């Protein structure tokens, strides 16, 4: 009798383990596409440098930087930073950044080389051309800017 009870218990446990892990409805809804989405998401970044930008007496100096190829199909910027290397003797200046969507934001900048972080682009797709503009507040400002854009992506 004890043997029969033990055998019944073992069979019940085996059924629990191997027969009913996923319902039919759940299995039907789990498509290959969802497996792809789950497997291919992540984060990436690109970094590009402008040529030397010279702004004289309030005139604008501008450079266009391409993102190059971006990962994923749906992307969301998590941070944008512009590292500005300022030449000695430069005046203070205003820095403008234009995203591929056309969103434009600015920062007031000093005369020392500094990295400026922008949060207003977060959520946008970084793919395409970015524009960097400087406008001197004084006689002359010379800056070389490095744009770095971090983003999340998914397929």
């Amino acid at each position, binding site marked *: 009798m004890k043997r029969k009870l033990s055998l019944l218990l073992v069979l019940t446990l085996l059924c629990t383990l191997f027969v009913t892990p996923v319902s039919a409805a759940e299995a039907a*809804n789990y*498509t*290959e*596409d*969802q497996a*792809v*989405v789950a497997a291919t998401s992540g984060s990436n970044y690109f970094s590009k440098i402008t040529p030397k930008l010279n702004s*004289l*007496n*309030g*005139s*604008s100096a*501008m450079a266009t930087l*391409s*993102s*190059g*190829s*971006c*990962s*994923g*199909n*749906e*992307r969301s910027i998590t941070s944008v930073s512009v590292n500005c290397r300022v030449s000695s003797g430069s*005046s*203070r200046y*205003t820095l*403008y950044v*234009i995203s*591929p*969507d*056309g*969103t*434009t*934001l*600015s*920062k*007031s900048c000093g005369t020392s080389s500094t990295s400026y972080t*922008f*949060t*207003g682009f*977060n*959520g*946008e*797709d*970084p*793919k*395409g*051309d970015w*524009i960097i*503009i400087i*406008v001197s*507040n*004084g*006689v*002359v400002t010379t800056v070389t800017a490095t744009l770095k854009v971090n983003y999340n992506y*998914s*397929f």
Partner: protein
Amino acid sequence: MSIRIAGNSYGQQGYSSINVNSKQYKAAANEYLDAVIAEEAMMTPEQKMMYELMGGREAHMRNVMSNFNSDGDFIGPGGVVVPGMYHGKDGTVDRSTWQQIINVSDDARQKMFDNVKREFIQENGISNGDTTKRSKIFREYQLSVKKEERAKGTWTLQQYEGKYRSAMYAAVKAANPDWEPGQPFDSSILDGVTRESVESNLVQSGNQFVRKSIDYSV
């Protein structure tokens, strides 16, 4: 307000060629004038001389005024910025005020869909920032609607754009599970992916769209 630099008098009333009552000047002054005055006060004698030779503050203000249109909107050098797309100093305006879903016309959405499809085929599914025309699509859209709608509509259009691309990727992947972006594929696979079919599968969630399900007919 006026200050004296190298013997010349400056001030809003001292300009000979600037209409200080224009919206263009007021916007430029609001954006730059305090910083310009502060910079003038810190100039060395040599810098002041150079500044004067280049026309001083009047020339400076004329230069920065070219970044604004007659309505006082920031447009950048050569009009590179569409009015309504400049949000000022980063962080002063919360991006949630423009990152909103609004109604975007069928025509604008179709143009974006067509561009996504053209680029997806051309680049074999790779998102190539060097060749994309997406900024042109956004600019055309922005110029076709009222200034107040431009930033929100652009955000909305961008949300659609990502979903169009994902649908095309899913369709190609469903036809050939081994396919990877960059590999050629039969573009007729995308015949079954239409703007309407993608959008009918979307539902708004906050300031984004999410898919109701992920079933595509190929």
